[in-house]
C-alpha cells in the first residue's frame, strides 16, 4: 500500500526567509505526486503536481518542488515566504491510473513577521 510521510508536523519561519517542506513516499510503481494547501476553514487547493517529465515542478504562489525518484522524495520549496503563506500543506501520491489520492498528515507552516 502506498504511504506518504511528511517529516515535519510544524515549520515556523520568519517572513522573507526560504522554506522547505519535506515529503517522502513509498511506492514501487510509477506515481503522480501532489502538494495541496489548506487555509483555515477551507478546502484543499492544488499548489503543484508531478505527472512526468521534468523533475522540477513549478506551482502557484512561487512554490516549486523537486521529484527525486532514487530518494522517493518530493520536497516543496519557496525562496521567500510571506505572511499569507501561513497554512497547512499536504503532500499526496496517486498511483498512475488510480482514482484516489493518499495524503500525508500535513505540515503546518507558520510565517512570523
Amino acid at each position, binding site marked *: 500500500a502506498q504511504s506518504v510521510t511528511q517529516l515535519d508536523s510544524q515549520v515556523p519561519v520568519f517572513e522573507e526567509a526560504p522554506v522547505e517542506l519535506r515529503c517522502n513516499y513509498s511506492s514501487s510503481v510509477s506515481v*503522480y505526486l501532489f502538494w495541496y494547501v489548506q487555509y483555515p*476553514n477551507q478546502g484543499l487547493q492544488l499548489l503543484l503536481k508531478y505527472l512526468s517529465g521534468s523533475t522540477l515542478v513549478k506551482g502557484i504562489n512561487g512554490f516549486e518542488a523537486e521529484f527525486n525518484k532514487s530518494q522517493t522524495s518530493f520536497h516543496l520549496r519557496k525562496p521567500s515566504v510571506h505572511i499569507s503563506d501561513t497554512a497547512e500543506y499536504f503532500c499526496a501520491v*496517486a498511483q498512475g491510473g*488510480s*482514482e*484516489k489520492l493518499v495524503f*500525508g*498528515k500535513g505540515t503546518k507552516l507558520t510565517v512570523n513577521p
Partner: protein
Amino acid sequence: DTGVTQSPTHLIKTRGQQVTLRCSPISGHKSVSWYQQVLGQGPQFIFQYYEKEERGRGNFPDRFSARQFPNYSSELNVNALLLGDSALYLCASSPTQAGANVLTFGAGSRLTVL
C-alpha cells in the same frame, strides 16, 4: 464556471443519528470522490463514483454509503453516527474515472457529532 459545491457547510448531530451530505461537481465532470479529514490529519479516501457506479472504496465501515445521481451530483450518508465521525468531509470531482491527477476539491462540510 462554478467549482465543486458542497452542502451544508456546517452541521451538528448527536450520536446515533444519520447525516446526508451533498456535492455538486464541476460541470462536465462525471466522477465524484469523497474524503474524510479528521482534525490534525490528512484527508482519507472514502468513495469514488463514476457514471453513477461505485468504482472505489476506502477502509470505512458499512455505516458509510454514497450514491451518484444522473446529473452526476452525489450524496454521502453516514448512519449511526459516532463521536469519531466528527470531521471535515471533502468532495472532489474529476472528468474521468482514473482522475486522481485532475481532482478539484470543494470547501467541505464540517460535521460535529456530540
